[in-house]
């Protein structure tokens, strides 16, 4: 039997080592090389370093990239789903002077409309064929005269849930429309208690475990707390959270009935990066980033509370 060459001895030792990392080479002449081989058997996949670098670069672009969103839109736009879309649009027009800026109807019956209220946008979707869950919202509407607008809301069929009062530098009252949306109708009469409240619409999220939702938003979307007041048992009584160039208010719901699930449309600089980060933070992927015919690249996730987050970046 002929003597094995050194490269054959080495390969035999490598084969044994790959089958069992603890194997000791029989031939001392290849021991050094086998130790190198053993370390190499744990090296990262060749494309992993580049993939991770790309993911990190996408994350950094989230905080530095600037993109021109569609006119009138900021990062957060509330999105209300219901079958009675026309009735809600009429309510918003009558009470808040909303202006419909666009609508589209798919042959399947799916409906989407966009309404401007003051300096903010509201999306309304669904239509008569909509069979999904209702996602009523709680919105604060900043108006010039809350008394007048509050009365108009009642005249339009809304029910008062809080009569006009003054607190926190605001004069405000609350109503519930017949589609279960809550409207906080407010006029600023003193210094604002938090920055970010100067726009016409602010979305309020009432959830179970508000503190956990705030942590999720920090991880998923790089959110920041601008103001937060916790109750004695750690419940979030009220908070203002910055998301991109917008804010949302988050609090723990007083009871199960007060929990509101909602859809929010986020205009973001890089939808792929935001989607990746949201999924890494624990959100359930609903649909991955996809180029849409209407000019956005969009993606969707659902958080553990059931809120649906649309994310979109305008296609260039």
């Amino acid at each position: 039997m002929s003597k094995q060459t050194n490269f054959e001895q080495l390969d035999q030792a490598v084969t044994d080592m790959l089958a069992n990392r603890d194997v000791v080479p029989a031939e001392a002449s290849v021991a050094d090389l086998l130790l190198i081989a053993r370390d190499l058997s744990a090296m990262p996949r060749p494309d992993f370093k580049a993939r991770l670098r790309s993911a990190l670069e996408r994350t950094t672009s989230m905080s530095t990239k600037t993109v021109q969103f569609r006119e009138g839109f900021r990062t957060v736009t509330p999105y209300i789903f219901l079958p009675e879309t026309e009735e809600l649009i009429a309510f918003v027009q009558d009470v808040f002077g909303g202006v419909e800026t666009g609508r589209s109807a798919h042959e399947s019956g799916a409906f989407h409309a966009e309404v401007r209220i003051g300096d903010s946008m509201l999306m309304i979707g669904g239509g008569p064929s909509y069979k999904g869950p209702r996602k009523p919202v709680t919105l604060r509407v900043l108006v010039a005269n809350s008394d007048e607008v509050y009365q108009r809301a009642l005249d339009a069929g809304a029910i008062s849930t809080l009569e006009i009062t003054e607190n926190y530098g605001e004069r405000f009252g609350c109503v519930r429309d017949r589609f279960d949306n809550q409207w906080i109708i407010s006029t600023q009469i003193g210094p604002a208690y938090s920055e970010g409240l100067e726009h016409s619409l602010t979305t309020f999220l009432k959830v179970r475990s508000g503190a956990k939702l705030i942590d999720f938003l920090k991880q998923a979307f790089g959110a920041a707390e601008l103001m937060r007041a916790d109750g004695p048992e750690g419940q979030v009584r009220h908070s203002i959270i910055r998301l991109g160039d917008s804010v949302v208010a988050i609090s723990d719901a007083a009871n199960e009935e007060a929990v509101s699930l909602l859809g929010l449309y986020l205009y973001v600089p890089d939808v792929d990066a935001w989607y990746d980060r949201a999924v890494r933070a624990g959100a359930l992927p609903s649909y991955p980033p996809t180029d849409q015919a209407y000019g956005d690249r969009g993606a969707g996730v659902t958080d553990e509370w059931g809120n649906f987050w649309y994310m979109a970046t305008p296609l260039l």
Partner: protein
Amino acid sequence: MIEQEKLLIEAAQQDPQRFADLYEANFERVYAFIVRRVQDRSLAEDLTSEVFHHALANLSRFEWRGVPFAVWLYRIAANAIADAWRRSSKRDHDSASLDNLDQSNWPEIERRAALFQLVNRLPEDQRSVIIQRFVEQKSIRDIAKDFGRSEGAIKQLQFRALENLRARAGGRHE
């Protein structure tokens, strides 16, 4: 060297896109630190990803005290490993966390990190054999088919690649 690293950190703290420089300088050592402990490529890659994302998100909190940046990354990695073990109830995570930061292991981590970098500087055919043999764990026969060469030729390429790495790493591999 340390002064240069300080400048890189300050640049990244001012502009997150400069984090790429710190990543390139430390990727292999963080991966080597983790894989030495977890002995599993997929888990090591997941945890490496976690470490750099955490480091990027918290870079503004990093305070320069003259200690290499890698030490901060090792601390994040040790916690990530302990958390992974806690999730899988694999072993006592507190002792594992302390064990991970034992400085006597760092020279070995540096040596492995250097080795991983050297693979990319091998001639293309040698590099390809190393990747297929040790990462993809293909047999010599399959690699020979892929290359369109004899099995003996592939064994010789493998031998030369490992010799090359030993020579470039310098000194005895222990």
